[in-house]
Structure formats: structure tokens, C-alpha cells
């Protein structure tokens, strides 16, 4: 199973004074079971790219293949694609709307055609996975804390049991504990076989959980690779408004001082282990 974006381009407001080429010949493959992170500064095309992944936007040029099927063909069932590729947008808690948490999360499965009982069961399973406490299932969404709301909103997409879960800035604006829960949740979902695509501005989060990173700038993908490869290119990242995790800057200074650090280490724990190894 995979999602292939093949040479896609997309222009907003074509033929007007506001014409903006948001995607320019982008090719990207989302591999089965991986966590793929997309980084890039505001306006680089990340969110536009995400909206192509489940057919919300159709490219002006290029193809999109889901499990080998061309999703741009007229007879392709786009409705079912939206259940297979679930997108959680930025600040998804702003979209919570139903009377109670459980009803809100069950909305997706009901929309898929499940009866109330089955929809409720799917909602409960999703809420359990995202760690929302059972006591609040019947509460109003407005009574939840910021972190709980975010997890309930993710549960709303998860309840539809998508193969690929696409998350736009899933931890933005949360306090450190809330953010920890989201990152752990994403890792767990991957462990249970789900494919994850994540957009984030936090280089530390990206370094910690990604298998692969794609870097966007001005509507193009300009780098693609493992976290250690990407974060080894600090100057290029800084040149396009990004940065690297703090510990990478430290290990880079050590390297310049002639210490043989392992440049594959990208998280605090990995760098700590490497330094201890050199020290002993």
C-alpha cells in the first residue's frame, strides 16, 4: 500500500493578479508504515500538498496514485479515499461541534454509513487509543482541556480507521505535557501499523519521531531523507527559514573542535549516548 504523488503542480487563482504557484513539480512517495514528516516555512506549500493526499485538491498537472489506482480518474471513488486517508487539520479542536465528545467522534463513522451502535463503538475505540478518559465521553467538548480537545479531534479522524493519518501541526500550541502525549500517540499508531504523514514547525519533534523527512521550499521538495541526513545540512535549512534541533548544533561544534562525534545522532538521548560513549 502506498500513496504516490507524481510530478504534481498546483496554482491558486490562476489567471488573476493573485496567481500563486503553490506546488511546482512535486514528487513524493508515502511508504507503508512509515512516519514521514514534511517541514518548510509558512507558505512553502506544505498544507496545499497535504490537501492533495486525499483528493481535497486536484493538481493542475501530474498524477496521484493510491495503491496503484489513479485517484484523478473520473470513476475513482474519492469519497472512500477520504476515509482511507484521514487528514487532521491545524488546531482541529476548533472543529469540534457536537453536543458531547462521543457524538462528535462518532460523526465520521456515522457518515461512513455505520449504524449508531457500531459508530459509537468505533468512537470509543478511537477515544481509548488517543487516551481521552472515559469520564468525559458524555461531557461537552468545551469542558475539555486543550490537550484533551486535541486528542478528541484526532480520535474523530481515527474513528474512520484510515490507512494513512495525515496530521498538520498536531502538537502546536499545546503545553509540554500535552505535546508529549501527542508524540507518544503518533509513535503508538505507527507501531500498530498505521502510516503517518506529519507537518511540523518543531525540528525537535520531527527529529524524534520521523523515519523520513521531506523539506519544502517555494512549492518544491528540495531535500528528502533520514533525519540524520536532513539535519546534517544546517546551512541549507537556515537559508530557507528552518533550523535544526539544538543538540545538533552542539554536536556540530564538538566535531569542529576535532571530537569524533556520531553525526547520525539527532535526538537528545542519541547525542547523550554518543557523548557518554566517547567519554568512557
Amino acid at each position, binding site marked *: 500500500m502506498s500513496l504516490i504523488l507524481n510530478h504534481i503542480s498546483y496554482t491558486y487563482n490562476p489567471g488573476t493578479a493573485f496567481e500563486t504557484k503553490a506546488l511546482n513539480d512535486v514528487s513524493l512517495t508515502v511508504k507503508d508504515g512509515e512516519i514521514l514528516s514534511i517541514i518548510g516555512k*509558512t507558505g512553502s506549500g506544505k498544507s496545499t500538498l497535504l490537501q492533495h493526499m486525499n483528493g481535497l485538491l486536484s493538481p493542475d498537472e501530474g498524477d496521484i496514485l493510491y495503491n496503484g489506482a489513479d485517484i484523478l480518474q473520473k470513476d475513482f471513488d474519492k469519497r472512500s479515499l477520504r476515509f482511507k486517508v484521514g487528514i487532521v487539520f491545524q488546531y482541529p479542536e476548533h472543529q469540534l461541534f457536537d453536543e458531547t465528545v462521543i457524538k462528535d467522534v462518532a460523526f465520521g463513522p456515522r457518515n461512513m454509513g455505520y449504524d449508531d451502535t457500531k459508530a459509537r463503538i468505533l468512537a470509543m475505540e478511537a477515544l481509548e487509543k488517543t487516551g481521552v478518559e472515559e469520564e468525559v465521553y458524555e461531557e461537552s467538548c468545551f469542558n475539555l*482541556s*486543550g490537550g484533551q480537545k486535541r486528542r478528541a479531534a484526532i480520535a474523530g479522524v481515527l474513528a474512520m480507521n484510515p490507512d494513512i493519518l495525515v496530521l498538520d501541526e498536531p502538537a502546536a500550541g499545546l*503545553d*509540554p505535557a500535552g505535546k508529549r502525549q501527542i508524540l507518544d500517540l503518533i509513535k503508538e499508531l505507527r507501531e500498530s501499523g498505521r502510516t503517518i504523514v506529519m507537518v511540523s*514547525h518543531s525540528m525537535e519533534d520531527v527529529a524524534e519521531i520521523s523515519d523520513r523527512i521531506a523539506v519544502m521550499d517555494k512549492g518544491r521538495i528540495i531535500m528528502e531523507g533520514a533525519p540524520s541526513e536532513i539535519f546534517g545540512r544546517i546551512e541549507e535549512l537556515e537559508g530557507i527559514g528552518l533550523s535544526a534541533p539544538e543538540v545538533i548544533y*552542539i554536536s556540530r*561544534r564538538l566535531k569542529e573542535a576535532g571530537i569524533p562525534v556520531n553525526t547520525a545522532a539527532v535526538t537528545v538521548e542519541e547525542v547523550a549516548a554518543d557523548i557518554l560513549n566517547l567519554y568512557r
Partner: protein
Amino acid sequence: MSIIKISKILFEYIRRDSEGNPKQIKTALDHVDLDVREGEFIAVLGANGSGKSTLARHLNALLTPEEGAVVIGGMDTKAPENVYPVRRNVGMVFQNPDNQIVGSIVEEDVGFGPENLGLETTDIWDRVANALEATGMWACRMKTPDRLSGGQKQRVAIAGVLAMRPRVIVLDEATAMLDPAGRREVMESVMELNRSEHVTVILITHHMDEAAMAQRIIVMKEGAVAMDGAPKEIFSRYEELSGLGLDVPDTVRLSHILRSEGMPLPEGIITREEMASALTGLLKES
């Protein structure tokens, strides 16, 4: 001299049922005391719901305390005649830049506040020019705000606040929605204002690396001040912070791990420079 003096303030959010009877009471600020000297750069940390934003809203009289007093530059925020002078002295910048910009071009937006003060036109232009210079947005003065990046929009919001010539700027998670370059721009602008214009800065944030740049950190817990001290001191209390659902900057966490594994690193390392030089020393010896 203290610019902000908060004594024993209490504030509660009361949820009422349909008949207006109180159903649930949440104490957001529980007898908080705080003294801020003019020119200080303070970061406020705390888990969601710890009272940070409620405290911030007390600083410019958006909220007033039920008990206790908030005094800004000698003015009690509870006195109705003080509300506008207090708001001129304390400017607020919030999380979402799109909700704070009113003008259709940048200089117009920045001029909105001073215009409302009824100043002379030349005076208004002086203030707008100064505010745009101070935030590095002069070159963008004729642009429409929607053509700006997130970091630029937040700097316009800060310039708008600055044009009011406030003595205090409060930033309530103002970098939360920004990309790394945007965060850097906003932090540099704010630090520069603090250094050269002596503006008092209160920075509410979830980013520990931003808090590390402040002179003083206040940690809130359940509506009270749980810790108050210099970054080096606060971040050395690693376990306590974790217990409050908070974190430390990555450099401090790295140092914590290495020390607990027996590496004799000095205490109080916060910056990457300090860390790199301490480690170089130790690793070259071994």
C-alpha cells in the same frame, strides 16, 4: 522601581446553569503576589490551565481581580478612570496574528492606535516610523498584511503595540503558530526592545528555549506562582518542572542526562556555546 505590583489577587471563573445559579467555580488565580521592576524581561511558564493567560489579562485591565490589587505604574486597574491609561502602558500581543491586524496596509495598521489617541498627524507618523524601525518592518510599510509571513505579521502586531509607547509588552504565546524563522524574528525584536528601549517584557510561552533567554522565569501552578528565579536556577529544578507538566530546554536535558551518568559537567549550563565548550574540555582530556 516596580512597574507592576500585584498583591494577593484572586480571580474565579464561575459557570452558571440556565437559571444563573453558580454550577462550578474554578479558581484561576489564587492570591498571587508578583512584583516586576521596570525593564525586566520575564518569561511565564505553566501547564495549560495554570492561570498564565488569566494573569496576563489582569495586566492591562481586561480582567480585574475579585480580591487584591493590580497596580501598573502606580495606577490601580480597578479604578474605572485608570483603565485607558493602564492599557496605554501595557500592550498585549496574542497568539494568532490574523486576529490582531486591522489595517489594509502595514503603516495604517500600526498607526491605528496612536490615531485613536487623537495625536497630531506628524506625531502619529513619527511613532509609526519608530515602531516599524524598531521591529525591522520599515521596508514592508506599504505592504498589505496578508502578503506577510507569520513572523512578519506578529512583528506588525508588536509595532502596533509599540506605537502606543507602552512601558510593558505582554506576549501571550505569540510565537506558538510561527515557523522557526518567524519565532527567531519575533524573539530578536522583543529582546532588542527590551535592551535598547528598556521596555518591560512579559513573555508567556510553552517553548523552554525562549524562556531561557529571559532574565527571570515565573512558573505557575494551579493559579499560584510555584517558582520564581533566574533561568539557570529554575531549569536546575528538573524533576519539579516535570512534575508540573513542564520541560527544560534540550541543552539542559542533555546536561542532566550526562551528569546523572557521571560526567562532571558544571551546573547551570543553558546555551549551546556553554555546553559545547564544557564538553570539548571533558572529551579532550579523556
